[in-house]
């Protein structure tokens, strides 16, 4: 269980919200002014030789819709920015770990993603990018309220620290509801990491801080880290309990899911996610041999838009179910 690959923590993410002082926030920005904001930020990357080589600038209105949707599914941009794409851009590092959304709810949204429990590294990288940008841009900052943001839920540090966690055992034991309630009392929120409905597809949950003002960056990171550790322990306890209670039942469920994923001819998104969750659990528990990094990759690529990009063609729902089954079957067999 000590191997990091077997941890329920899939990835950790840091987001910093910033605005440039001399421009109104994106909701009050004309398309023309939005372009000025984009240019101001893009200039920072273009004028620095090192940054220029390491980052790619994407002006959203110059990119086709499917690619934009894929960016949403891979969390490089948000649905919010997709809807306002005429005014937006995104700068992405070549390794895809850092992305800077331009003209989302705020002028600048620095996001940094790390696999596993990499929250400190993610913060360090985001913070460095923040310093680079601030070197050239004057931020909207107020002594009392800190970094000014369009929504008051982000003001202060502008920092959102989050973790994506795979919690199938806690879900199965019906313990999550209680945990979610407890977390909300200490200023943290939990929601599904995939899809848009209320159900967490594939038992993938996103845990993040809600409060951004009156707490230091370090405190936020520590609080989220603390919860990640506690949830990891709880999930592992729940897994052990399920196994010791009826190992055969768990093995049966996992092998059934594995069998369906390997052999089905039609797989819809929701069902695939549920089955993949079982298989990831199977790998974590040593029941199935395999690589859960690959399964996380599959989870990402079987989302509707991503799947169409994998096959480089537009697919209707039924065609997607066929291709999804084909794609998963190929990778698992």
């Amino acid at each position, binding site marked *: 269980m000590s191997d990091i690959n077997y941890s329920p923590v899939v990835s950790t993410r840091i987001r910093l919200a910033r605005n440039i002082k001399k421009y109104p926030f994106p909701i009050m920005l004309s398309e023309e002014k939005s372009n000025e904001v984009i240019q101001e930020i893009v200039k920072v990357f273009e004028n620095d030789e090192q940054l220029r080589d390491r980052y790619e600038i994407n002006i959203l209105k110059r990119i086709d819709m499917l690619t934009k949707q894929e960016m949403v599914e891979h969390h490089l941009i948000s649905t919010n920015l997709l809807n306002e794409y005429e005014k937006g851009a995104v700068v992405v590092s070549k390794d895809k770990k850092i992305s800077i959304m331009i003209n989302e*709810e705020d002028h600048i949204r620095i996001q940094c993603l790390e696999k596993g429990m990499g929250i400190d590294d993610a913060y360090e990288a985001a913070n460095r990018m923040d310093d680079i940008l601030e070197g050239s841009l004057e931020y909207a900052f107020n002594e009392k309220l800190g970094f000014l943001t369009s929504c008051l839920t982000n003001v202060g540090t502008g920092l959102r620290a989050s973790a994506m966690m795979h919690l199938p055992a806690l879900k199965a034991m019906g313990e999550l509801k209680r945990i979610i309630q407890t977390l909300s009392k200490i200023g943290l929120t939990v929601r599904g990491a995939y899809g848009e409905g209320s159900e967490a597809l594939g038992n993938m949950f996103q845990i993040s801080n809600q409060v951004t003002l009156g707490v230091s960056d370090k405190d936020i990171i520590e609080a989220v880290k603390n919860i990640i550790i506690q949830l990891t322990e709880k999930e592992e306890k729940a897994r052990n309990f399920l196994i010791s209670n009826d190992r055969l039942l768990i093995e049966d469920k996992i092998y059934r899911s594995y069998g369906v994923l390997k052999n089905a001819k039609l797989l819809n998104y929701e069902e695939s996610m549920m089955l993949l969750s079982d298989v990831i659990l199977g790998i974590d528990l040593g029941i199935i041999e395999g690589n859960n990094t690959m399964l996380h990759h599959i989870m990402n690529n079987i989302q509707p838009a991503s799947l169409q990009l994998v096959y480089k063609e537009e697919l209707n729902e039924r065609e997607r179910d066929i291709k999804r089954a084909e794609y998963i079957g190929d990778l698992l067999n």
Partner: protein
Amino acid sequence: MICEKCKLNQARIHIVKIYQGKKISMNLCEQCALLYENIIIDPSGGKNINNFVSNLFEAIHGNQGIAAKGIPVIKCEECGLTLDGFRKSGRLGCSNCYKVFMENVEVVLEKVQAKNFHIGKIPERSGGELKKKNEIMSLKKKLKDRIKKEEFEEAALLRDKIRTLEKSIAGGEKSE
């Protein structure tokens, strides 16, 4: 379970308060939780935070708001956002909106944030002034101390330092 206060609606909120070391628990409906305990439940569970903020306004001010006749429209001169616009979207339009809608901003902050002052990162460029102000405060403390001890020469040095710092801030404020 029925709400303990109104005894009409279904109690959907369980509140536990620790008051002077005693534990008090209550089961309330959403309306009574807001009315008596100032608790607002976000029905989306944090998913739709902007709606949540604009709902907060409705809950606090009722629907009459500024849309009511006879009340002048409050508007940010810099970006053009009106108070009504802020209430509807839950978002501010620019840095200046924070000053224009200060009263409303504070009401929302009280609900969605831990405190109403920043203690996190201070940026180099825009935070330089804050750092200077902090320095002035500590110098002023020292100055008082010197005067009390009748160490006037040292006090004069401190006073000059404070003046220089204050001047540099005043110069910066003009550009705001």
